[in-house]
């Protein structure tokens, strides 16, 4: 066992640290100081801020760290990607934008796309000149994703697509989408799906933002009405789209960046527990609160070392096993518990949200608390993940749900 990083990775870490020390000075005050009100999350100002910071990261060579150089990446190792995520989170710096494009759509095109598609799309994903979203879920295809109904009819050199997508995160400012469509309605449902790339600005595409329980609009409904998609935008073989969507990809599996972010939340909770008082005593002296905070501290270390185990497997070239899934499941459920506990610490102040001058840290905690309820639904519900762990990891029989 060896927890250390090589000199090459440590040199890269130093480069990141130096860069952050210099460039984080340019971040607006609201980024550092929770008591200064920043732009609202779904505002155009916030989108501009994300693009501005992304460009700086990109110019410094910190976007697409383990992407090949020919597509605009750094061509560095997986571990260097891990080091970057770790440092970014440790410094509490903003990350790159276009996460879905960089983490999901790009790697899919890289693995299954044509040379022409790679040249056309990959560089602009990294620069965030083109923002990507994902058109998978539908009103009748959530957990049962293979049940999609959006129909693509073969017209020779193109398809005509009709249907509806839903929960499309970032759809309202995206330029392109990865899309699953039904091309063979008579085949078994997993075998009649094709993977296409959709121009979100094409005629017949209508995007309608949905409002979430946080009050914000991050995701959308997307309506497709006789949308023409050229066959040059098909990824992989016809009717093999399901396997392409499921086959993705060489992600960084450890989630180390996310782990450090959770660790930051625990630190913030400790600070909160010291500041909040009940009956004249800081909450950090309450034995029950101490037990809970200690448990959270244990939990972030569970996440960390489960991440290291997943990373070890990946570095040894093993296929992703159920330990990747349990790590992910633990992470999202932990975030819900952390945010819920923050509300508990705040007592009556937990009721105050952004806009109240008495809200703690302008209601950021309240936003995160409400947003965390989505964590166990997005990217597959926790129930679906448990099914996968039981069936793929433990070999229990597949069955009707």
């Amino acid at each position, binding site marked *: *066992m*060896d*927890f*250390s*990083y090589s000199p090459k990775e440590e040199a890269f870490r130093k480069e990141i640290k130096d860069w952050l020390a210099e460039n984080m000075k340019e971040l607006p005050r609201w980024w550092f100081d929770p008591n200064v009100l920043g732009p609202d999350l779904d505002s155009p100002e916030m989108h501009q801020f994300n693009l501005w910071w992304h460009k700086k990261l990109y110019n410094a060579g910190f976007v697409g760290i383990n992407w090949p150089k020919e597509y605009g990446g750094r061509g560095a190792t997986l*571990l260097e990607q891990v080091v970057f995520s770790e440092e970014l989170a440790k410094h509490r710096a903003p990350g790159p934008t276009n996460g879905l494009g960089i983490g999901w759509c790009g790697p899919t095109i890289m693995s299954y796309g044509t040379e022409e598609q790679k040249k056309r799309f990959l560089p602009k994903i990294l620069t965030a000149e083109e923002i990507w979203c994902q058109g998978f879920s539908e009103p009748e295809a959530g957990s049962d994703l293979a049940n999609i109904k959006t129909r693509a009819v073969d017209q020779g050199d193109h398809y005509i697509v009709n249907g509806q997508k839903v929960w499309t995160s970032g759809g309202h400012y995206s330029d392109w989408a990865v899309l699953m469509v039904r091309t063979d309605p008579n085949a078994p449902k997993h075998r009649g799906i094709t993977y296409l790339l959709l121009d979100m600005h094409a005629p017949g595409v209508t995007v309608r933002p949905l409002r979430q329980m946080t009050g914000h609009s991050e995701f959308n409904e997307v309506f497709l009405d006789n949308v023409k998609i050229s066959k040059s935008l098909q990824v992989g073989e016809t009717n093999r789209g399901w396997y392409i969507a499921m086959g993705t990809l060489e992600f960084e599996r450890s989630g180390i960046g996310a782990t450090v972010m959770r660790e930051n939340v625990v630190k913030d909770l*400790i600070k909160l527990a010291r500041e909040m008082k009940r009956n004249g005593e800081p909450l950090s002296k309450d*034995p029950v609160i*101490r*037990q809970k*905070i*200690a*448990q959270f*501290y*244990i939990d972030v*270390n*569970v996440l*960390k*070392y*489960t991440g*290291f*185990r997943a*990373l*070890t*497997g990946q*570095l*040894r070239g093993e296929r992703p096993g*159920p*330990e990747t899934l*349990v*790590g992910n*499941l*633990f992470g999202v459920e932990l975030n819900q518990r952390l945010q819920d506990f923050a509300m508990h610490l705040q007592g009556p102040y937990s009721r105050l949200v952004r806009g109240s001058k008495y809200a703690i840290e302008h209601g950021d905690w309240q936003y995160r608390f409400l947003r965390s309820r989505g964590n166990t639904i997005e990217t597959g519900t926790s*129930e679906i*993940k*448990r*099914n996968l*762990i*039981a*069936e793929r*990891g*433990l*070999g*229990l*029989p*597949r*069955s009707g*749900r």
Partner: protein
Amino acid sequence: MDFGLTEEQEMLKTSARDFLEKECPRAHIRAMMENELGYSSDLWKKMADLGWLGLVFPEEYGGAGMRFRDLTILCEEMGRVLLPSPFMSTVLLGGMALLTAGTEEQKKEFLPRIASGDAIFTLAVLEEDGDFWPEGIQLKAVSRGDEYVINGTKSFVWDAKAADYILCAARTKRTANPEEGITLFIVDAKEWGVYASPLKNMDLLRKQFEVTFTNVPVPNKNIVGELHQGWPVLQQVALKAAAALCAEMVGGGEKVLEITVSYAKERIAFGVPIGSFQVIKHKCADMFGALEYARSLMEWAALSVDEDASNAAVAVSMAKAYCGDAYKKVCDEGIQIHGGIGFTWDHDMHLYFKRARSADTAFGDGNYHRELIAQSLG
């Protein structure tokens, strides 16, 4: 960066598993439940021959010179089969204390005998109040020339009947600081005045005793570590024992999961295997998750102890709290998924269930360790 077992460690694991599956079948466990000593001397000898008893002792003391992390691999395998043996008492408690704080003469005298299987040790720390705090140590040792005389009662002592030597924590001085004035003695268990009476135990595979010491003389040369300075040694021993218990718990928990999953695949209800019901799948997935998380912390803790890392104490506290909770949860669900059969004496599930309880409360339960963690956070 590599957080996994080496090839040699994988081999150790495989050979330990094969050996224990063969040597410690169900019938052996059932026999040992009824046995007062709680172990088989034949099997103990075989373990000595394999080099297990001296695994981490330096070669000059008859050991194999391997690392603590290697030792935890054995503990994991022993936990899987609930091996009834004084291994934990002898190697982790006695051997580790001598290795950590013993004099050269003590190491030369005892470690080779432990390694060869000729000396069984145990540790007597806890008393009436049952907690691992310095305040709890009240049993008195009084100086009388070139020896001390011990009087008092220890409780929750593992394997005392099997032991040839009892490492006894005694109060030799009273000061305002309870950590001061505790001394560790090697007591010959065959000494007249040492009496071990069995405690009626829930976990029948790890025997516990109350041990009374009546005017027991111990030569000064049998003091382990400094006079009055036994507490830090005990903390070191407890740290290693807790890390080893974590390995034992993860091993046991994984076996419970295997038994339960295979039952869920075979047991038919409403015409289908119960493992096809989502409610059973989710329980199994959670058991699997809990064990994966426990393993992550256990391996980290074992490695921290192995490397004597500065954060070893916090790492072990985290692992001990988590593994205890995980093992209990896995056994709770294991019994539930088995239904009535899991509630019977004949099924092995209750043996794991009871071990989970006895291991969780040994060397600090979850609440104890979480409070230590809270203190470390300031």
